[in-house]
C-alpha cells in the first residue's frame, strides 16, 4: 500500500482528504506538528506528499525547497491561490504537480495516481491476466491459440480495472478515466463498452471476468 503524507493546516479539509485517500486504498499519514516538518517527513518516508502552500511557521514552497535538498519524494502542491507565481515557484522548486482548491476529488485521485505511476517508472508494454497476455500499445489480447483486438476505450477500461483488480470500481471512476483520456463518451456507450469487453473475454475463455456490483460498480476478477 502506498503511503501518502498530508500537510494541510485546515482541519476539515485535512480530515476529508484523509478519508478520501483511505477510501482509495492509500495509507494516509497526517502531519500536525509544524515545527519540525523536514525531519518528520524523512522519518515517515512517504511515497508521496500532498503539501499545502499556506502552512504555519514555514511556507510550503520553502519546505519543498529544503526537502528537495535531501530527498526526491514526489510532491503535489495544493493551494487555494490561483496564482501563476506560486505555481512557477513550486514547479521550479521541484514539485511534481500543482493543484488548486477546491479540487474535484476524482481529478485529485487521478493526479496522485499519475504522479505515483511516473515515480515508479514501470510502464510495461505487456501485462498478464489469467493465462492471457495483453499488449497494451497494440491493443491485442492473446490466449494460447486466439487473439482479440480491444478498442481504445475498452483498453482504457480494462487497464483501469486491472490496476484495481479485486476491488470495486465505480462507473463514475471509469467515466472519469475515459474522459481523462479524451474519450468523452456517455453512459450508454460505457455500458456498451463494458458488455463488449465481457464478450471478448468470454471468447477467450474467461467467463466471469467483470462482475457487476449493483449500485456500486464493477470488479475485475
Amino acid at each position, binding site marked *: 500500500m502506498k503511503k501518502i503524507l498530508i500537510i494541510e493546516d*485546515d482541519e*476539515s*479539509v485535512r480530515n*476529508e*482528504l484523509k*478519508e*478520501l485517500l483511505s*477510501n482509495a486504498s492509500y495509507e494516509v499519514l497526517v502531519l500536525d506538528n509544524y515545527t519540525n516538518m523536514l525531519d518528520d517527513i524523512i522519518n515517515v518516508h512517504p511515497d508521496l506528499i500532498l503539501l499545502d502552500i499556506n502552512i504555519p511557521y514555514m511556507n510550503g514552497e520553502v519546505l519543498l525547497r529544503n526537502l528537495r535538498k535531501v530527498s526526491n519524494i514526489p510532491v503535489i502542491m495544493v493551494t*487555494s*491561490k*490561483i*496564482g*501563476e*507565481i506560486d505555481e*512557477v515557484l513550486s514547479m521550479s522548486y521541484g514539485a511534481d504537480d500543482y493543484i*488548486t*482548491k*477546491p*479540487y*474535484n*476529488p*476524482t*481529478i485529485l485521485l487521478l493526479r496522485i495516481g499519475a504522479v505515483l505511476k511516473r515515480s515508479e517508472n514501470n510502464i510495461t508494454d505487456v501485462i498478464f491476466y489469467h493465462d492471457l497476455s495483453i499488449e497494451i500499445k497494440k491493443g491485442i489480447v492473446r490466449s494460447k491459440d486466439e487473439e482479440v483486438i480491444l478498442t481504445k476505450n475498452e483498453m482504457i477500461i480494462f487497464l483501469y480495472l486491472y490496476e484495481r483488480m479485486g476491488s470495486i470500481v465505480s462507473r463514475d471512476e471509469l*467515466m*472519469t478515466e475515459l*474522459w*481523462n483520456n*479524451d474519450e*468523452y463518451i*456517455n*453512459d450508454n456507450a460505457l455500458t456498451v463498452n463494458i458488455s463488449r469487453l465481457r464478450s471478448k473475454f468470454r471468447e477467450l475463455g474467461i467467463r466471469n471476468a467483470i462482475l457487476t456490483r449493483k449500485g456500486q460498480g464493477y470488479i475485475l476478477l
Partner: protein
Amino acid sequence: MKLSDYLKDKLFIIILVILTYFIILSFMIGFKIIIAFQVCFTIIYFLLFIIIFLYDFIRKYFFYKEILLKLDMLEEKYLICELLSKPNFLDGEILYQMLYEINKSMNENMRDYKEKVNGFKEYVEMWIHEVKIPLAALILYTHNKRTAKALVKEINKIDNYLEQILYYIRSDTTEADYIIKEVSLNKVIREVMLRNKDVLLEKNIDITSDVGNLKVLTDYKWLEFMINQVISNSIKYMRDISNKSIKIKAYKKDKQIILEILDNGMGIPKCDIGRVFNKSFTGLNGRKVSSSTGMGLYIVNNLCKKLGHRIDVESKEGEYTKVVFSFDNNLFYSEVKNME
C-alpha cells in the same frame, strides 16, 4: 484663436485708440500744427499700436495653439499641465496656475480612489481564496459521504461563480497575473470537460473534440477559465432536444490557430448578437434562463484582449452557437525556439 477673434475681443481698446487719435488730431488742428507733423504723427501712432497688438496677439496665439493641439492629442486630458511650457504673459500665467491646481487636485482624488478600489480588490481576492478552503472541504465531504449529486452540482456552481469574480478582478488590473507559454489545447479541454462531466452526462450532451496536438501560446489557467465559461454557456442555453451536442475543433489558418466550440443550443437572437460581450448584457436568452449574469462573455472578451487573442461569436437563433477563438502564432517565440 484667429486674428479676427482677437480683434473682436480687443474691440473696445481699438475704439479707444482711434478715439484718442481723433482727439489728439483735433487738438493738433486747433493749435494749427503743420500738416507734415500731423502725417508723421498719424503713421507713428498707428504703427505703434499695430506693433503692440501684433506682439500681444502672437504671444497668445502660439500659447493657445499649443494648448489646443496637445489637448487634442492627449488621452488623459487632465494631465495637460505637464506638457505646457510656462507662458510669459499675465492671463496665460493665471490660467497655467489654475490648470496646475486643478490637475493636482484631480490627481490626488484619482489616487485616493485608485487606492480604495485596489484595497477592495485585494480584499475580495483574499476573501475568495479563504472561501475556497471550506468549499474544498465541502466538496471532499460530499464525495466521501457519497452525498446526492444535486448537492455537488450546487457546490460546483458556487465554485464557478467564485472563479468568475476572481477573473473579473484580474481582467482589469494592470499588473495581471499571467504567464504565457505553450499550452496543449487537448489538455485544457480535457480539464474543462472533467470539471463539467457530471452535468454533461446528466443532460446527455454529446461531446466531440478534434483538436489534434495543436498548441497555443497563452496562459493555461486563463484559457481554462475562458473555455469553461463558453462550455457552461453551451450547457446553460441548451435546447431540450434529443441529440444535444457540443463539437470542438481546432485547426491552423494562415498564421493563426483557430479553436471553434459549436453547440446546437438555443442560439442567440440576431438583435442580441452584437452585444453579447457587453457588461451585464443578458438579452432575450437571459430572460429564459434564470442564472444569467451577463458577465461571463464580458470577462472572457476582456481576458482575450489582454492576452492578444480574439473571440468571435456566430449564431442562428434556434439552431446553433459557434464561439471562435483565434490565437496568433508568435513569430518571436517560434524564432527563438528554432534557434535553440
